[in-house]
C-alpha cells in the first residue's frame, strides 16, 4: 500500500524551514553543519531525519528550536517566524515545541525527584496551583506507563534507561505541546526496550495529536515511525520522500548505500561488500559540487563542478543528484 503523500504537501505546514544555514566556528575554521536546508512538516505528520554522525541532523533540530542561532534562513512554526523571535515571545512559543534527547539518564537532573522534574515545565509556564500541577504530572506519568505513586518521589538513578526515557517523554508531554523533536530517542536503549519506547511514541502521537521530527541514524527505526523521510549528508538534504517510496525506490546513491549497509537478520542474505568505500569528508572543507561525490560510485565531472538541487523524481519524492537511481 502506498501512502498518500499529497496529504503532507499542505498549504499550511506546522513547521517550515527555509534555506536554513547553521555554521560553527572551530579554531579559526568554519564547520558547515547545516547548509541551505529547506523542509516542511504538516500537522500530524512524522518526518524522519536520517544521516550518519556529524551530518548536521541534531544541529538542524536545535536550530528549529532556536537553541542554535542560524546564519541565514528562516524557521516558521504555525506561520510565525521563530528566527525573528526573542525573549518572552520565543519562550511562549517554545511551550508548543518540546525536545527528547538521546541519553535519557544524562538529560535528567540526578539530584531532583521525578515529580519535580516533570512539574518544572509547568512551573516555568506559570501554573501556580500546586494541586493542579500534581494532577497533571500524575496524568502524564500514567500516560507513559509509569505508576505515579511509585515514581514521583524517586531519583533518576533508581530507574533503568528505558524508564528514564519514559520520564523524559512525560516531561516533554506535560505542557501539551503540538510538536516534539525526538533526537535519537532510542539509540542508547536495548533492542527489547527500544521497541517499547517506539510503540509508546506512536501511541502518544495518536493520543495527543502530535507532530514529530524524528532524528535517528538507524533507517529501520526511522521507517517504523515516519510518514516521510529526509536523508542528510554533510549538512545537505540528499533526498526527501514518503517512507515506503523512499525505501522501495531510493533515488540518491547515498540513500541506497545506507539501506544496503543495514545488517539483515537473515543468514541467507549475504552481506553486500560495500560499494562506497571511505568515510565522510570533514564538514570544515566539504567537497565542491555534490558533497557525496567523493564516496559515490556514480560521480563524474559534473558532480564536482555543479551542486545538485532538490528536484522531483516521483510523487512527493525529491532528490538532489545529477545521476539518480530512478
Amino acid at each position, binding site marked *: 500500500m502506498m501512502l498518500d503523500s499529497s496529504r503532507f504537501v499542505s498549504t499550511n505546514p506546522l513547521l517550515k524551514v527555509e534555506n536554513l544555514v547553521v555554521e560553527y566556528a572551530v579554531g579559526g575554521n568554519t564547520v558547515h553543519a547545516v547548509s541551505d536546508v529547506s523542509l516542511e512538516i504538516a500537522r500530524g505528520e512524522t518526518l524522519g531525519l536520517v544521516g550518519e554522525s556529524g551530518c548536521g541532523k541534531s544541529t538542524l533540530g536545535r536550530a528549529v528550536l532556536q537553541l542554535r542561532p542560524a546564519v541565514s534562513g528562516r524557521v516558521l512554526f504555525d506561520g510565525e517566524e521563530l528566527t525573528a523571535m526573542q525573549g518572552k515571545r520565543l519562550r511562549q512559543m517554545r511551550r508548543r515545541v518540546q525536545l527528547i534527547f538521546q541519553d535519557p539518564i544524562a538529560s535528567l537532573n540526578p539530584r531532583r525527584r521525578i515529580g519535580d522534574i516533570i512539574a518544572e515545565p509547568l512551573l516555568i509556564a506559570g501554573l501556580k496551583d500546586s494541586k493542579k500541577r500534581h494532577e497533571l504530572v500524575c496524568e502524564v506519568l500514567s500516560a507513559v506507563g509509569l505508576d505515579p505513586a511509585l515514581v514521583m518521589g524517586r531519583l533518576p538513578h533508581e530507574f533503568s534507561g528505558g524508564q528514564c526515557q519514559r520520564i523524559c517523554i512525560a516531561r516533554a508531554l506535560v505542557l501539551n505541546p503540538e510538536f516534539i523533536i525526538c533526537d535519537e530517542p532510542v539509540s542508547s536503549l536495548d533492542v527489547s526496550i527500544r521497541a517499547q519506547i517506539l510503540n509508546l511514541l506512536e501511541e502518544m502521537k495518536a493520543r495527543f495529536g502530535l507532530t514529530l521530527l524524528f532524528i535517528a541514524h538507524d533507517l529501520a527505526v526511522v521507517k517504523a515511525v515516519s510518514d516521510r523521510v529526509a536523508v542528510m549528508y554533510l549538512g545537505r538534504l540528499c533526498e526527501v520522500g514518503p517512507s515506503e517510496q523512499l525505501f522501495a525506490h531510493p533515488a540518491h546513491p547515498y540513500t541506497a548505500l545506507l539501506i544496503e549497509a543495514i545488517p539483515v537478520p537473515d543468514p541467507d542474505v549475504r552481506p553486500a561488500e560495500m560499494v562506497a568505500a571511505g*568515510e565522510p569528508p570533514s564538514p570544515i572543507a566539504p567537497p565542491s559540487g555534490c558533497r557525496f561525490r567523493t564516496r559515490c560510485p556514480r560521480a563524474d565531472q559534473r558532480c564536482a563542478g555543479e551542486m545538485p538541487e532538490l528536484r522531483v523524481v516521483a510523487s512527493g519524492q525529491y532528490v538532489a543528484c545529477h545521476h539518480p537511481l530512478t
Partner: protein
Amino acid sequence: MSGPALLSVENVAVDLPTARGNLRAVDGVDLSLGAGRTLGIVGESGCGKTMLSRAILQLLPKKARLNGRVMFDGHDLARCDAETLRKLRARSLAVVFQDPMTSLNPVLTIGTQLIETLQEHLELDAMQAKKRSVELLAAVGIPAAGQRLTQYPHQLSGGMRQRVAIAIALSCEPKLLIADEPTTALDVTIQAQILDLLAREQRRRHMAMILITHDLGVVAGRTDEVAVMYAGRVVERAPTPALFKNMRMPYTEALLAAVPKLDAAPHTPLPAISGRPPDPTRPIKGCSFSPRCRYAESPCHCDKPQLVNAEAPDHQYACFHPIQIAAGAVA
C-alpha cells in the same frame, strides 16, 4: 563441530561482589570453538556477554570470582601464571573493544603503539617493526598508512581508530580474536566496512573469532554459530542458519521480532518484549525470562530449564515450552 576445540569454556561462572550483594554476571556457561570458526554471542546489556569475554581473556575486575575452566590452545587460562598469560595474550589471544578511543593510548602516536607491540612480541628491530606496521595499517584499509604512524588517536575518525585497534590486535597473528561490540560506536556504513574487514582478515589468517554484539543482524551473515545469552546464561545455541530458521527459545524469537524491519510498513506496532531483564543481584528462581515470556507456565517460575538438545544437530535451548517448529522443518 569439527576438529579439536581451540577454546573450550566449561561451566564458567563469574561473581562480582557489589554493595547490593553478590552479582552473578555469568552463570554456568559452556562453549567451545574450533580453529578458524566464528561464534556470535548475542544479548542485551547486562546479559553477561562482556563479562564472559573478560573471563576468557582473564581480564576480569580484581574483585570478581571465576569458577569453572577456560581451556585455550592446551592451556588452562585460570591457572596460568602472569608471564604465560602475557605471552598468550600477546601471540595467540587478541581482543578488539567497543570504543577505540578508550582502548588506544591517547598520548602515544599510532606508530608507537603498533611498533612497541611488534618489537616486544615478535622481536623485530625498529626498522622491521616500522615496515611491518605500515603493512598492517594498509591491510586494514587505512589510506596513507606511512603518514598515520606519526598521528595521535584523536586525529583519526572513529572508524579509522577502530581499524588501528584491529591492526594492533592482528599484529601478532592471533589464533583467536575476541571482538566485543566492535562496531557499536560506529556509523552504519562504517560498521559494514569494519565487519567486512574482520571477516576478510579472519578467512585469510584462518583465525577463530568471537563476535559479541546486541544486533542479531550483525551475526546473521557473518558467523558459523550463535549463542544467545540472557541474564548470565546461554539460553540458545545453534549453527547460525539453524538458529534463524528454527529458533526454539522464546527469548530469541522475541528479540528478533522486536527489531524494526525494513520491509514492514511504517507505523506497524512492534512486538515489544514487556518488562525488562531481571536484576542480576536478585536472581529469579525459575527461568530468568519467565516474567517476560508469553509462553510461560507455572513450572517456568519454579525450575530453571537446562540446555537440552534440539532435534537438529548442535542445536541446544533452555526452555520448557520451546517454540514448535513446522513438521519437516528439521534439517
